[in-house]
């Protein structure tokens, strides 16, 4: 039972990371109508930058801050150099073009940092566990991830719904031309929004780095999950993305932890240990399949764009 709670918390933590990524994707897709597969590359860069800067400065926090700035700069550069030419074009062009960027970034990272991947050490204060419930201990750092991600999500909400920039971002989503005709430099706005998305991705990447991975290609695996989250949650809905992210995070984590044992009840030990892991990875996709069959518009489809 304790194990179940612990795994559930892990699931929530994974869900929060997924939500960050999905939110960034939805933001950019909703406002700029841009499909960006290279979002995962920015996630990867966030992790690599953090590992590098933390090693250079000896401080996790300094490394993280520098990494966020670096990711922001890279994101804005990508927008100016590559993305601008993709606006208004077919989504397929976006997919193909940003796929080219994925290849580029993966190779660039390999060139600069080598093929082996990196590690990012946690500051020693974080290496403790915290008692969340009587008898249930959960790593402090994972709690930090959950809390900080929630904080970021809240900040994002406030930014989009309560500030002038947020109003302009939303206005630009419905009528870009008119926003320009009223005196706003919409090109700059788009660069900022894209940069914001990049920072969100980079933040997710660097936060998970100490406990999961810093390696080439890490962005794509989670990107696919992020898209699955958006589809399950409902396109264009941040609330849906949140719920779906939690669902996916929980099902994946708890499922992987308990499914092999469950299967052992029905199958031979041998078969269970072979099929267990394979089926665990399938759980999320089965959920996706279910949604597509019974509710293809997602759990919380946005009524208007």
């Amino acid at each position, binding site marked *: 039972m304790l194990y179940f709670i612990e795994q559930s918390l892990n699931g929530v933590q994974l869900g929060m990371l997924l939500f960050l990524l999905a939110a960034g994707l939805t933001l950019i897709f909703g406002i700029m109508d841009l499909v960006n597969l290279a979002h995962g590359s920015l996630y990867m860069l966030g992790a690599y930058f953090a590992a590098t800067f933390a090693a250079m400065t000896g401080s996790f926090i300094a490394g993280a801050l520098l990494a966020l700035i670096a990711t922001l700069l890279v994101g804005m550069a990508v927008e100016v150099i590559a993305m601008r030419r993709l606006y208004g074009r077919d989504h397929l062009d*976006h997919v193909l073009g940003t*796929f*080219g960027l994925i290849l580029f970034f993966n190779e660039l990272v390999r060139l600069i940092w080598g093929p082996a991947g990196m590690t990012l050490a946690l500051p020693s204060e974080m290496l403790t566990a915290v008692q969340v419930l009587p008898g249930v201990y959960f790593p402090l750092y994972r709690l930090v991830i959950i809390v900080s991600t929630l904080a970021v999500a809240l900040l994002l909400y406030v930014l989009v719904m309560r500030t002038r920039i947020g109003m302009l971002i939303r206005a630009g989503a419905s009528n870009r031309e008119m926003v320009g005709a009223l005196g706003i430099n919409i090109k700059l706005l788009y660069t900022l929004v894209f940069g914001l998305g990049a920072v969100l991705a980079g933040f997710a990447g660097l936060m998970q780095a100490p406990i999961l991975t810093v390696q080439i290609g890490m962005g794509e695996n989670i990107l*696919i999950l992020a898209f699955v989250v958006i*589809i399950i949650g409902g396109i264009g809905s941040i609330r849906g993305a949140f719920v779906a992210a939690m669902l996916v995070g929980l099902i994946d984590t708890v499922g992987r932890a308990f499914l092999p044992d469950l299967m052992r009840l029905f199958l031979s030990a041998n078969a269970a240990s072979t099929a267990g892991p*394979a089926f665990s990875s*399938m759980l999320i996709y089965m959920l*996706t399949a279910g949604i597509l069959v019974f509710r*293809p518009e997602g759990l919380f489809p946005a009524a208007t764009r």
Partner: protein
Amino acid sequence: MSRRFNTLNLLIAGVIAALALIPVYSALSGYPFLLSLFTRILILAMAAVTLNLIMGFGGMVSFGHAAYLGIGGYAVGILAKEGFNSGFLQWPVAVAASALFALAIGALSLRTRGVYFIMITLAFTQMIYYVAIGLDRYGGDDGMTIYRRSQFGGLINLSNRTVFYYLCLVLLLGTVYLVYRIVNSRFGLVIQGSRSNDRRMRAIGFPPYRYKLVCFVIGGALCGLAGALLANHTDFISPALMHWTRSGDLLVMSVLGGMGSVFGPVIGAVALLMLEETLSGLTEYWQIIIGPLFLLVVLFARGGIAGMLVGEHRG
């Protein structure tokens, strides 16, 4: 269509002639590697042609097409491991299994559209990839060697490299011809119509979902055959066959060669793989060039090589 002797058709004829002569050149010049490289080009070209059927003509951009290479390959590999070496059994199973998976994946994925369709096909392919990794008995993550190529009685010996090459060439050209006939049939016209205007198609009595699904299945099934060929070519299967980057490669070939042309992906496959060979000779990090190059093609030469050649006549 246009005049018989336009530039594109000349290129096609030239490419086919060149491909037919590769084994001769390879033997004479003493570069046996060339034969192997071009066998691979033929097989991947075949897969790219099937992708283009559903993508270029059907408007269904599948980022998961490599799954069928894997399914076809694993069908051959699994049957071989279990002692069934007959190609007469393996290859139909490869095609049938691919068709079944395509049916399942297509039925679900076609409930979405646009970029969501793309990502869902990607997601399901990842699922199959992870399942393959979980198959310990058949090599899991490391993959599995195939000790005997598909046997066809006395009919044809696949272990003979040259014979195998020509078989692949024949199957490739056959696939091209088949796709050509499909695209120009009434079925093909419905598919192309659905690509641009779903509603109108439905209004005149052609439910797009059904037609698209059939198209999707055909594409997947034929790709499964390519997978069977690939397994024979490499004598090895592994989950890497269906990694999403493989699907990306097929996409690149289709777009580079020209999505509007049935033969385009063949040109694209030749161009891409030869470019890779050349570039990897120059630098270990050749993908750094391919990535932006592809982006440039998407931005400025959207019709691919075929598009550029046909365009010059429209000018």
